[in-house]
Structure formats: structure tokens, C-alpha cells
């Protein structure tokens, strides 16, 4: 007799998933789709914007009938690379001016649409149960640290700002073999939340949304390049008008309030 452990697994998983989905809702969306051609707006956004943007999605779609927003979150560097390589995208929300400048130089964005929509600060965090007494970046003693999570400095903006800050404080070289490099800011946060690293450096907005970390210190703004979030319509986009509507909404009243709610400035 032959056994099929894999197929048993698939079937049980399928049953489980079907049980989870809400059939009524799917039917409803399908009905709406049939009434009006939907525009699917693909927004490539820096990982640090995840929660704020998810909250903005519903109200935006309600206010703009016929547009559905799909987010593609990742580190700004990676998103810039994928857009450059032709990945479909209508709006690019970056966590660094540098990535946006590169895009502008290569004419990958609509230059007139570019706008800075948020600011952020760099904070030094630890797990909420930690008894660390560090209260400023200058207090950091590399010898007393096992691991510190930071963004990868070449591709993740938060990593670049962190590197600038630590270099400014002559801490970057002494910290070299303590650094765990995250592939985006959320991964850095997760390392700290799970208590696997002693400390981490993230944006204040990320520390703000997490209940499991506490902020020990905030970096002085002139230690690093200003952390501004530039947004622009992608040049290759087929939905230029909808993309611009999204940017207007983001920089408008509702957008600004939502961003503030999640710790942006």
C-alpha cells in the first residue's frame, strides 16, 4: 500500500482555509467588481509605513470609488531596485531622499509629483523587560553589548542613518562585530521584540507602535541626514491620475493625521 501523507496534509489545510474565509464578503466584492472596472493602484512603500498606510487604505478607497489599493512593503532600496527592473508600481513612498534622488536621476518617477510627506527620528530601543540604564546614544558601551540589531546600511535607509549616527559618535567601528543587520526596519524591531538582541535602532514611529519595546534614547537630528519620506508617482505607471489622487490624500488632512497617530512628524 502506498501512503499519501502530503495529500492528506493539503486536504486538511484546504478544509481549514475554506472554513476561515468569509464567503459572503467574497461574493459582495465580486458583485461590485462587475459593476465598475476597478483600478488597482500598486503602492510600493517603505516597511516603516506599514501600519499607517494600512489604516489609510479603507478611507481612501471609500473616498475614491473604483480604486483599490494594493501595498507592496519592503525596504526602500529593494523597492527602488524592483521598480527600476520593471516591477509594476504606481506610487513609490520611500524612507530616504537618496533612493528617491536615484530614481529621479534615472527618470523613473514623475518629477513634478515628488513631495516630502513625513518625518521621523532615530531611536535606541530595548526589550520592555530589559533593565538597561542607557539613556542616551553617548552612553552606549560596545564592550557591554552582545548583539545590536540595525538595518543593513547599504540597502536599508534606517541602517544608513544609524551608521551615520554611530560614526559621528565613533561607535561604528567598535560595534562592528556586534551588529545584526536586518533586511528592513521591521525585522530589526522583531529582533528586539523577541529579546534576541540586546538593543536595536529603529525609527521612532516603529518603536511607537510596538508594546514590547521601550525607547531609551532619541538621536539628535543633526547626527544624521534628515529622515524625510519622499513620495512620487512612478513614471511607468498606467494609472497616473489615481496615483496622484493617492498622493494628494496622503498629504491631505486625513493622511497627515493618520501619520501623526503612528508616531511620524
Amino acid at each position, binding site marked *: 500500500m502506498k501512503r499519501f501523507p502530503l495529500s*492528506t496534509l493539503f486536504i486538511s489545510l484546504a478544509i481549514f482555509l475554506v472554513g476561515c474565509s468569509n464567503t459572503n464578503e467574497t461574493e459582495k466584492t465580486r458583485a461590485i467588481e462587475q459593476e465598475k472596472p476597478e483600478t488597482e493602484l500598486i503602492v510600493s512603500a517603505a516597511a516603516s509605513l506599514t501600519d499607517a498606510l494600512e489604516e489609510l487604505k479603507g478611507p481612501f478607497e471609500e473616498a475614491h470609488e473604483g480604486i483599490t489599493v494594493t501595498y507592496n512593503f519592503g525596504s526602500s532600496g529593494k523597492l527602488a531596485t524592483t521598480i527600476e527592473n520593471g516591477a509594476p508600481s504606481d506610487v513609490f513612498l520611500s524612507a530616504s531622499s537618496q533612493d528617491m534622488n536615484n530614481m529621479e536621476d534615472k527618470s523613473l518617477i514623475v518629477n513634478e509629483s515628488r513631495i516630502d510627506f513625513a518625518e521621523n527620528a532615530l531611536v535606541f530601543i530595548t526589550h520592555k523587560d530589559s533593565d538597561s540604564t542607557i539613556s542616551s546614544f553617548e552612553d552606549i558601551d560596545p564592550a557591554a553589548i552582545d548583539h545590536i540589531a540595525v538595518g543593513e546600511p547599504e540597502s536599508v535607509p534606517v541602517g544608513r542613518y544609524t551608521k551615520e549616527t554611530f560614526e559621528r559618535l565613533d561607535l561604528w567601528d567598535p560595534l562592528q562585530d556586534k551588529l545584526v*543587520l536586518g533586511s528592513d526596519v521591521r525585522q530589526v524591531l522583531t529582533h528586539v521584540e*523577541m529579546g534576541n538582541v540586546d538593543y536595536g535602532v529603529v525609527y521612532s514611529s516603529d518603536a511607537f507602535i510596538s508594546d514590547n519595546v521601550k525607547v531609551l534614547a532619541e538621536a539628535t537630528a543633526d547626527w544624521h541626514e534628515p529622515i524625510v519620506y519622499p513620495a512620487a508617482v512612478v513614471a511607468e505607471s498606467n494609472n497616473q491620475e489615481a496615483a496622484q489622487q493617492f498622493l494628494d490624500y496622503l498629504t491631505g488632512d486625513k493622511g497627515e493625521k493618520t501619520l501623526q497617530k503612528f508616531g511620524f512628524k
Partner: protein
Amino acid sequence: MLEMDYSPLLLSLKVAAISTFFVFVAGVFIAYLLAKRDFFGKSILEALFLLPLVLPPTVVGFGLLILFGKKGWIGSWLLEWFDFQIVFTWIGAVIASIVVSFPLMYQSAAAAFESLDERLSNAARTMGASESRVFWSVVFPLAWPGLLAGLVLSFARGLGEFGATLMLAGYIPGKTDTIPMAIYFAVESGQMEKATFWVVMIITFGFSLILWVNWWSKRNIRRFTKS
């Protein structure tokens, strides 16, 4: 010539080799134990073994973090009693590799043992061979082509492991940067030359490995069948 740090190559080979060793021993042992045996819950056990094959690597990585993290079930215990940390070390990379490549080894070994002709082992037994003699002189040589396939697959899978490794071993240049990790971060930061170098490297290596194994196993099977 490109200025290159070769540590990812050595690290990848070390991680894949060590994990393949453990996976081979455990996979062969467990598969032999379960082969030709039927008991309640066997399919469930087998499904459990094969689960890492169908799960996204990030899920595996998350599970491993829950187990081996500093505050994890096993991790906190190791830390407390042995002051030993798995997360963010190359050993973490070995564990991630073991977990994702074990299903491949198990499946190949189980298939190899299932397809053996029981009469051959029984013949050996009637001639007074001990169970270990039966295994080493009859079962193992006969199952070898299948076991070898599992071995190669496991090694290749370990060499290419990325997702779970990134979560458990982190990315610490010079310590836990395996080739797939080096490729990922080189691509992300737009260092295409560096990425291309490692891609060519890993393809060349994987290709030669398969060629060599095929040649070697053909030669060995001939030797077994002749004697």
C-alpha cells in the same frame, strides 16, 4: 579583478556540510526504523517530518526563533544552563539548514528502503547474519542510490537555504553571511557585480557537485554489482 571577501563561500560549505552530516545520519536511521512498519499515527508523524518542505521558509524561521530564541523554549534553557546562544550564530544557520533539508533526506531514504526486496534481507538472516550485518551488507548498499540522491539534495538545499537562516542566524558580516545572504544583500544594495560573482559561484559549484556525484555513484554501483 574584483575585491572580494571569500568568507561566505567557506561558511556556506561548512554549514551545508555539517547539516548534511546530521540530516543523513538522522534521516537514514529514522527512515529505516519506520520502513516496513505500520502503526497508528505513522502518516501524521511522516507529515510532520515533511512539513518544513511545504511551509514558507519564513514560517520555519519564525518557528525556530520561538524554539531557539533567547527567550524561546529551548533557547532560554540553553542560555541559562550552558550560557550557549544559538540565535545569530553560525550554529543557527546549521539548525535552519537541518530543518529544511531533513524532509528531502527522509523522503529519499524512506522510498529507498520501501522499495527493497525483503527476501534479500531475510535470506541474509537465515544465513545467520546479525541485524547490523544485514543493514550494512545488504540494505545499505542496495539502498545507496536512493540515499545518495537524498544526500545530494540535502546538501544543495542546505547550501541554498536563505529565509529561515536569515531569521535565526541573522546577517552578521563575517559570521553568518552565507552565499545566499551575500547575494540577497548585494542585490538589494545594487551591487550587481558582487551579486553576479556569487550567483556564478553557486551555480558552478552546484553543477560540478551533481556531475561529480553522478559519476561517482555510477562507478560505485558498478563495483557493488560486480562483487
